[in-house]
């Protein structure tokens, strides 16, 4: 086990550094890139907090739909194949429900301010 700070604290310290000291000093493309860098760190931070729970929920649903065991990557690949070869119908309610839930979980990490995410959350 490592000594403090935690990985979250380290990331937060860089986010604050970028926001308070760096971005205001820059112009043009470098300023834009510093913004993007800050956003990327925020994604990592949210992923550290949410990924484990999101992935376990996604895996549980996939196993119920596909009725097989496997890791998340393989299960997703099999789901894609079954959609492609029409073994699973795209009007299947269980499928649509799973796709909505998974997408909302992804966006809770990637882009929780996205207009489509906020509209669906209502």
């Amino acid at each position: 086990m490592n000594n403090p700070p935690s990985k979250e604290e380290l990331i937060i310290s860089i986010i604050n550094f970028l926001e308070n000291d760096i971005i205001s000093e820059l112009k043009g493309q470098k300023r834009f890139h510093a913004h993007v860098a800050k956003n990327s760190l925020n994604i990592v931070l949210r992923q550290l907090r949410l990924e484990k729970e999101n992935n376990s929920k996604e895996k549980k649903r996939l196993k119920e739909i596909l009725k097989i065991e496997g890791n998340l990557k393989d299960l997703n690949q099999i789901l894609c194949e079954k959609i492609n070869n029409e073994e699973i119908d795209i009007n299947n309610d269980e499928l649509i429900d799973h796709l909505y839930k998974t997408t909302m979980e992804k966006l809770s990490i990637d882009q929780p301010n996205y207009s489509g995410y906020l509209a669906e959350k209502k």
Partner: protein
Amino acid sequence: MNQTKKDIKDFLISKDIKFSSIFEIDKLPGGSSNETWIIKYKNDSCVEKIVLRRHFQGIRNIDNEYPPLSLKIESDVMIAAYDEKIPVPKILYRTESKSNLGEGFFMEFIEGVALGNKIVDNNFLKSKKVNLSEQCGYHLSKIHKINHKKLENIQKSEAIDEFRKYFEIYKNYNLSIPVFDFSFKWLEKNIPNNEKLHLLHGDFRNGNILMSEETGIKSILDWELLHLGDPHEDLAWICVNSWRFGKMNKPVGGFGERKDFYNSYEKESNFKINKKSIQFWEVLGTLKWGIMCLKMYDAYKSGYDKSVDRAAIGRRSSETEIDLLRLITKEFLDE
């Protein structure tokens, strides 16, 4: 002065002696297949500008699986549009592929705002009489009416071609994104009929239209994706949520209403817009942007562009997933 800048200056002076007063030449950042240069010169103590567009280092990359459109064809179409009084930059001089500058063209510089997030600001327009959606409908119908039979070598790409192209790009990345497969399957089952080929702009969206606060549309830019196809493709692309810059309740580019856009288009063109076709192209447009995000990330992964934004943009592909699900499974056009 580097060689390209010298070539630009020499070329322009050979056309008009007024260009002896050129004092600044800059290449704009970005653009992987084409370069854009801004040239400044003095005319009676006023600073004037013109723009050069040419292929990357003057050479059209035909090794690429989807090579960029020849700038000869792009300028042919822009000239045809200009002749029809569609607001586009006037082409001033063209350069040949065998010349020092390679294939490209010089065009007039037009002042205005093209930044999408500025245009969607409620306070952007100073005049309440201007309706940007109506202007978009009017000008787009004029683009679609251009007589393309007079123009040569314009590629055709209809629903099935666009579907296949993006499906192939997605499959080549070997990723498993179930919402994308779900959306491709829906598209495959909903390919619309199109009776007549029209000339399409191919990238008609907020961000590619130069606007003024007083009069609205000043110039329609970025013609490099032009092709022949179904008019619904252009009509849908500007309404894709990714181009609303956060203003989801303004379906046309984040600034306007569908009814104003469609009514003015139909009035000018006598073309009846089909709701099912719009839905198909809006789904395909959304998916296309999701796949383009992955494509831009791929430029990072391959080492071609190591910038921080090329890495991050891959994660924006999930934004399109929620839009795709809502477009396909909820009542369409109820906004």
